[in-house]
């Protein structure tokens, strides 16, 4: 079969016309070749997480072929999913993320509506300010924020440091500016006639927002929700700074501080924990990829 095709392509090489389509075919083959290379590069770490998570500790220390599992076992999964500590991390992460997403939406959707539609004194400056806030990274603010909450605790007696719910105050600084920014973009793209019609029919501003803007801009809303969830789930620096007791930790920090004991790395469990920690964003991404990408390209997310 392959001989025949080679014979066939032989003579056409000397003929001038048709070279365009042959160029195309070769370009396509090279594209597939390099895409495969890049896809392998992208998927090696998650694949290796999976491989290691299925290995028992004996197999890991035996240093056999690291890319293959000879005796697959679920013991790592069973150990982690029955350990109260790990489930506690998971619940903390889940609670923090869900509440932060709610707070973010409650703050940013009305604000974006006001900034996109109700021009008022300073609204343009505020929109720019929101965007600038989004550019301020967490690594610039963690030290003053930590000190601020410590001083606040000294003054009022309300101790927030080393409580998981302190993160509910801090994460919105990361999620709200971006969500407001992309919601402004989505709301601004809605034709003016739509809300003018609603106002003429006697709708209040609140009704215009809930009956017209939110349903029409639903894709943007979903993209913003996904973004807020991913950011709060993945955040590592703030929980590392603010929480230290093992029952207050969220998943990423919990895995790193409890499964790594001094120089002893229990790699089977660490990889299992990392995979379970990566699962929620991956599952959301698998089902809502288009919204995910829309959010990414709409506001030029952090990279």
């Amino acid at each position: 079969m392959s001989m025949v095709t080679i014979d066939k392509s032989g003579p056409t090489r000397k003929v001038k016309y048709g070279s365009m389509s042959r160029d195309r075919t070769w370009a396509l083959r090279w594209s597939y070749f390099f895409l495969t290379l890049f896809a392998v590069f992208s998927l090696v770490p998650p694949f290796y997480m999976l491989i290691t998570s299925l290995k028992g500790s004996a197999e890991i220390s035996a240093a056999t072929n690291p890319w293959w599992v000879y005796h697959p076992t679920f013991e790592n999964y069973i150990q982690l999913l029955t350990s109260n500590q790990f489930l506690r991390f998971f619940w903390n992460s889940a609670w923090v993320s869900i509440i932060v997403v709610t707070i973010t939406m409650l703050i940013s959707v009305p604000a974006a509506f006001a900034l996109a539609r109700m021009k008022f004194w300073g609204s343009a400056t505020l929109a720019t300010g929101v965007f600038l806030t989004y550019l301020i990274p967490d690594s610039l603010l963690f030290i003053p924020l930590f000190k601020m909450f410590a001083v606040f605790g000294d003054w009022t007696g309300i101790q927030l440091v080393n409580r998981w719910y302190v993160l509910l105050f801090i994460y919105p600084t990361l999620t709200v500016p971006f969500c407001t920014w992309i919601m402004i973009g989505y709301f601004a793209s809605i034709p003016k006639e739509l809300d003018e019609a609603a106002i003429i029919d006697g709708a209040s501003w609140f009704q215009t927002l809930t009956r017209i803007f939110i349903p029409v801009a639903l894709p943007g809303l979903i993209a913003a929700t996904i973004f807020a969830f991913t950011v709060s789930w993945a955040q590592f620096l703030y929980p590392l700074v603010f929480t230290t007791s093992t029952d207050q930790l969220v998943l990423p920090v919990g895995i790193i501080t409890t499964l790594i004991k001094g120089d002893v790395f229990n790699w089977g469990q660490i990889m299992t924990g990392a995979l379970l920690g990566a699962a929620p964003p991956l599952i959301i991404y698998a089902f809502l990829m288009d919204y995910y990408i829309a959010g990414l390209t709409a506001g030029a997310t952090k990279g």
Partner: protein
Amino acid sequence: MVDVAFQSSRTAAAQAGRRRVGLRNALRRKSMSAFLMTLPLILLIAILVIYPAIYSLHLATLNKAMTKFVGFGNFEFLFKRDTFWLVVKQSCIFAISAVIFKALIGFIVAHFVHNVPANKQRKWRGMLLVPWVIPPAMSTLAWLWLFDPSYSAFNYTLSFFGLGPIPWTGDAMWARFSVILVNVWYGAPFFMIMYLAALKSVPEQLYEAAAIDGANWWQRIWYVTLPMMRNIIAITTLFSLIVTFANFDIVRILTAGGPLDHTHIFATWAFRVGIEGSDIPLGASVSLFMVPILAIAAIFILRDITKRGNES
């Protein structure tokens, strides 16, 4: 009796109605309700972003026990330390080389994905974006395990080619390479997605016109693709520069600054000094050194965005 009761209730209702109308009128006034709607946002930004930013300027002028004003004492102390200059150098090397490689790889991969027939693009895009979706703290753990000194899967594979073992995180130069590699792995998909969106917006006629004029593939990229994508390339690169410069997770987990502080960047060193070393003023001073670079990048991004806003 009945009449009186009826009357009084009617006046009460009227009063309540008037009050409600008054409230409704106030709410209907655009500026008032708009202000109320943005108030939580303004409070959040003022209390938890702007105030701490100013507060860190104040903190940077205090001594370690935070009892005495020392002016620029912390900065003078930093300038005299070799580690500080190492951190400055490493931050620049890390951010610039990582962003260049992310941009290049993203550009190349976006072209390959764009070449593939449209119905298959989704699948490839889905696979190539996975590094961006996994929380960086989690994926860096996988890299740490791939780089493990005694069980490294990379060294195992390389040994078949007679290479290695490579001290991925043990040697200063290799550790620098490793943190950049992991950052490129994590950030390149973002560039790919942005460039892919930009590539799709370039009108096909331009390429046809270029092909008729006899342009080869290189000329098509240089004279058609790049000028059309200039805006998105600039903005993506600046964004990435900010985030890479402020990176914490990857360096912290992979090397924690080692070996011998050679891979520390501003964020990780500020954490080491400020939180672990409990010298909060010094930590605040270290992280303040990120501000100039961030400010420059932010100004350029803002200029670009307002320009785009004016065009549309």
